[in-house]
């Protein structure tokens, strides 16, 4: 079993659309949507939810006002500016649940409590089992929820003896991205030929190298700017990252998306371009 994580650095390069279309071509797989901040994969695949779990990922410091003697130690020690300066209240948006205030409080007025930060869904799509999640907007610990999605996906993949776990990652390079990459056999980097896309790609390549994860490249909308596409290709060649496929700037993709359809079902050329990815993966990962 091989785990492939699709990331992009820059948002909006077509990561989720790519993932959904690739999913339709791979056999015997489990899907995971790790873009818990803005999960979109379910909008294309319309999975049927089988079960829902409340996810209590984060801890927060909770204060018992009756015990507080206003000594201000919690304020002095908190490094996240999560204790208000005037009345020593916990700011939930800033609290990271580290427990330092609990430790330094001389009257035990503070304690850590788990709070609900999201929901985890086990679902069935027409291409196989799918795990997705939704973070409560404004909640912390998206990284932990991502790890939970991956854990569930790999449990199912193991139990059902699947060949692939395909993970839709999140944009950026920070905590949810690192969590979605962790333990993956390969990363697919979906980029677009814009200076922003290229700049973000370089940063995401630093991350995959830092964590020593092999990567492959997909250039979406490659004909929007062929000069930058070429630069991206040669940059990646130097970094030992193979080009898996190029996808054109295509009206068919936009229209397919609008109708909630997969573009591989609507155009033979686009389908061939996606099948290239499949054959690359099968070869690199030695999955029969």
């Amino acid at each position, binding site marked *: 079993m091989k785990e492939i994580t699709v990331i*992009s*650095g*820059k*948002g*909006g*390069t077509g990561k*989720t659309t790519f993932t959904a279309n690739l999913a339709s071509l791979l056999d015997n797989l489990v899907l995971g949507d790790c873009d818990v*901040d*803005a999960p*979109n994969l379910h*909008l294309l695949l319309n999975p049927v939810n089988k079960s829902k779990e409340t996810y209590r990922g984060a801890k927060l410091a909770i204060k018992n006002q009756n015990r507080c003697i206003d000594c201000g130690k919690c304020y002095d*020690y908190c*490094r*996240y*500016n999560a204790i208000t300066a005037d009345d020593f209240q916990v700011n939930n*948006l800033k609290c*990271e*649940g*580290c*427990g*330092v205030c609990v*430790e*330094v409080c001389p009257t035990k007025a503070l304690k*850590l409590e788990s709070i609900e930060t999201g929901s985890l869904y086990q679902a069935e799509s027409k291409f196989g089992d799918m795990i997705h999640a939704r*973070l409560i*907007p*404004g909640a*912390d610990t*998206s*990284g932990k929820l991502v790890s939970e999605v991956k854990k569930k996906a790999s449990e199912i993949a193991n139990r059902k003896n699947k060949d692939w776990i395909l993970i839709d990652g*999140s*944009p*950026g*390079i*920070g*905590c949810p*991205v*690192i969590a979605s990459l962790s333990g993956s056999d390969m990363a697919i980097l979906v980029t*677009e*030929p*814009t*200076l*922003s*896309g290229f*700049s*973000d790609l370089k*940063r*995401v390549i*630093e*991350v995959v190298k*830092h*964590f020593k994860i092999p990567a492959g490249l997909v250039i979406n*909308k490659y004909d*929007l*700017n062929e000069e*930058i596409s070429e630069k991206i290709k040669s940059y990646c060649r130097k970094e030992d990252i193979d080009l898996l496929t190029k996808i054109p*700037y295509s009206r068919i993709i936009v229209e397919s*998306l*609008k109708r*909630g359809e997969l573009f591989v079902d609507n155009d033979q050329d686009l389908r061939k371009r996606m099948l290239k990815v499949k054959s690359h993966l099968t070869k690199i990962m030695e999955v029969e």
Partner: protein
Amino acid sequence: MSQELSLSILSGKGGTGKTTLAVNLALALDNVQLLDADVEEPNDYLFVSPKIGEKEKESVMRLIPEVNDEKCTACRKCVDFCEYNALAMMLDKVLIFEEVCHSCGGCKIVCPENAITEKEKELGKLYHDSLDNLDFWQGELNPGEEKAVPVIEKLKTKIDHDKKVIIDSPPGTTCPTIEAIIDTDFTIVVTEPSTFGLHDLKMVVEMLNNLDQDFAVIINRSESDADYLIEDYCQENGINILLKIPFSRKIAELYSNGNPFVYELEGWEEKFKTLYRDIIEEALNNERNNSN
């Protein structure tokens, strides 16, 4: 208002045009301070200061524990305390996983032997460039680091309220986004007329309502047969749409080369100026309604 308005620009979904709006709006106005708080993937520099890497910079540091093995008695107090599993005990020796450490300082506090000290590690950088009419700051998270919030906090210390402040926020609805928008007077949410765009817009609106933050929407890649997706939702929820930027290959091509379209397409400088006046009016209206 004696001081200028501070504005944050946000989107739920990445790639909807946050950078496009932030940069073009900033360039259409006078006396602006643009802060790129999308510290995981900052892109504004490509349009306003391509050589930002060579400009003035400062480090943003965080603290990482170090254990003095001679003083350590392997009592495990630090390991048990750490909520992030950043410390582990192996053969009576404490191991530290810097990547997952949140730099809270708790291990140092609980160590009864004073065996833990802290060292500084670079988390990210701030860059600065002074252009005509535009004071530009960029925050940047180092690849491999997880925590964007301290970089954004440091970036916000540079805010100059005598200028029109525009903050380009990280996409999404988690802590870095909140940090970027929370002290601004008004937020513009950029969205696109697709099912993805609408879904992520709803998440952002939920967050902004929780935060009690005033906001309005701009539709990017607007198309007459799709805009209803966003328009219907906004109408039902009493959200104003202040501007539409059309779906255009020309704009996409200009963007790909790092060219702000406000300079290239006629009439847009005036449109952005009008937009800014509308934003101020909207912000003042909200202020009035809130005080009533």
